[in-house]
């Protein structure tokens, strides 16, 4: 008699590159769902959670962090080769993170500021997202990502469908939450119109302007955003700082901040 074949649980691996650990912690923060998820999948490699590690290949790799060293640039290619699907999570993995601020400066100078013996440190001049090195199947945004979106992405990949993650702006979430617009009502500078939704319009709900931690939405109108901020009295240095935080390396934000710098150089000349 044939014994029915027990279906193999899909295997998940969680990887860390340059980051704060916060996005993979989001998985451990799913307190109500963690044991249920762990029952449906094999957490084959998740260093933060356990000693046991099962070798690849993996059905799904979840990657946190950006690439900042030659060693990590090689390691991400090995991870990709072992992974059927690869999803990047968080601003570091999808845009280079806060550490991409080095891309606008001189990394040698940065090294000398922090370390007395710079020769002990090996680092690349730029912090780059994972997609700059290997093909990525889906990018989940946020600094940090949100739990519900992470569970949606894991569920979607396990069932072979696209994740249902909206690419619209924070403004839409604000309207749904019934918030009064902080820009219109209080003149507070807010990046909501160009920032991707996903946080639940958190900052405006706490009476502050959005600071763009989910990075640019799909097709953002940056020139109009910059004009609005200037109209509100934010000086160019201020606009550049607003665009250069956790998603400074995301192309729309990067290009807009560099355009302001180029404009300033043009008017000097």
């Amino acid at each position, binding site marked *: 008699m044939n014994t029915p074949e027990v279906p193999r649980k899909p295997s998940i691996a969680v990887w860390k590159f340059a980051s704060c650990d916060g996005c993979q912690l989001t998985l451990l923060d799913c*307190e109500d769902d963690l044991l249920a998820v762990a029952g449906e999948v094999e957490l084959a490699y998740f260093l933060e959670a356990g000693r046991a590690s099962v070798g690849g290949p993996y059905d799904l790799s979840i990657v946190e962090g950006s690439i900042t060293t030659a060693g990590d640039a090689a390691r991400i290619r090995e991870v990709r080769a072992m992974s059927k699907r690869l999803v990047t999570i968080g601003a570091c993995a999808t845009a280079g993170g806060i*550490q991409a601020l080095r891309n606008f400066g001189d990394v040698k100078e940065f090294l000398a500021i922090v370390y007395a013996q710079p020769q002990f440190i090996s680092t690349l001049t730029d*912090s780059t997202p994972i997609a700059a090195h290997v093909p990525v199947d889906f990018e989940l945004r946020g600094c940090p990502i949100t739990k519900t979106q992470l569970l949606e992405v894991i569920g979607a990949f396990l069932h072979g469908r696209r994740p249902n993650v909206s690419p619209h702006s924070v403004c839409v979430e604000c309207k749904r939450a019934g918030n009064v617009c902080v820009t219109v009502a209080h003149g507070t500078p807010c990046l909501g119109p160009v920032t991707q939704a996903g946080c639940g319009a958190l900052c405006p709900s706490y009476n502050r302007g959005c600071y763009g931690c989910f990075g640019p939405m799909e097709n953002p109108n940056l020139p109009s955003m910059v004009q609005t901020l200037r109209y509100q009295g934010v000086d160019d240095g201020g606009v550049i700082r607003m665009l250069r935080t956790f998603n400074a390396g995301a192309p729309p934000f990067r290009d807009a901040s560099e355009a302001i710098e180029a404009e300033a150089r043009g008017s000097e000349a």
Partner: protein
Amino acid sequence: MTHRSPASRTLKVDAIARVEGEGAMFVEIRDGEVHDVQLRIYEPPRFFEAFLRGRRFTEPPDITARICGICPVAYQMSACNAIEAACGVTIDGQLLELRRLLYCGEWIESHALHIYLLHAPDFLGYDNAIDLAADHAAIVERGLQLKKVGNEILELVGGRAIHPVNVRVGGFYRVPTRRELAPLRERLLWALDAARQTVSWVAGFDFPDFTHALELVALHDADGYAVLGGRLVSTRGLDIAAEEFDAHIAEEHVAHSTALHAHLLERGEYLVGPLARFALNAEQLAPDARDSASAAGLTADERNPFRSIVVRAVEIVHACAEALRIIDAYAPPEHPAEAVEPRAGVGCGWTEAPRGTLWHRYELAADGTILDARIVPPTSQNQPAIEHDLFHFVEANATLDDDALRHRCEQVIRNYDPCISCATHFLDMRVERT
């Protein structure tokens, strides 16, 4: 594996699990003597202190939170303290109490994570908490729910659990109403009981017979178990203000670490964190926490780093009791934040992060531009102490076979709940016996 003489061997762990960040361990034994131990931190540096230069004095709470996803509030609070000191502003009253409430949330979340998911599996012979849950579902569930209560405080007061959005220099963007805080009360009463059960559970673990005589260093505040400030004191008479940190503690850059090693200029390695706080401030714990500590047999003379897990559990009891006290006495402050005007100068500030004292120093220009920033996290202060423990533990247990010794050494490291993302600014263990 071939049998090698236990007299000379090398043990390595290339990537230490159940710690935050990336590190390795290397132990070399020659002719029965411990020759070298290294906690290697190879997590790539991210240069926070460099790119803070040129930013506005209002930005460090958001930016430095990103150093660590597990203790962002510690970074936000130390940054606020230092910048407010530079600008001559002191926060007190209900704003200070709300900061303490937020910090209680982080202590509960971080300690519950470490006890249940990262550290307890070591003592009970499991590789991870998921396997532990297969045999002890109710216990792991209790730990997850306890952690969740901590996160609920962070979400309510801070906006979200990881990188809260509601913290600003001077206070908050929006303060909660009494009605908004009310639902936390019921949850915290449950958590207080779960925390007491956690103390009795971990106190019953089997602890290796191992003590050290390291100098213990923590903040001390006459007004209560220090979290948000105070003077830095030690078991050997250190007693300094935040501005004096530099004159007593030096950081050194060693080849095997992207974290800087800190030491006391007069006496060398020292230890920060739960064991130090308990040794120096135990009598200031909330009565519930003091009762739990004495029932667990903890005294201020506790020097077994393996028993730091019991102190963490006691600190959860304390944090729950504190949070309840704050909520019960809460009256919303008139303004969500004090006005803070920049001025030229230097400000230093510190707080007790879950893993120990976290010091920040900022130099500001008159217009509020940051000219210089320095951050000394707890794990870089503890790294020499961890290596000290490893050395003496291996010396006393050199007869163990490689696997057992390696496993125990990983535990020695996890006693400190090292946060390597913080310290780099990753652990990889290797034991070499030649």
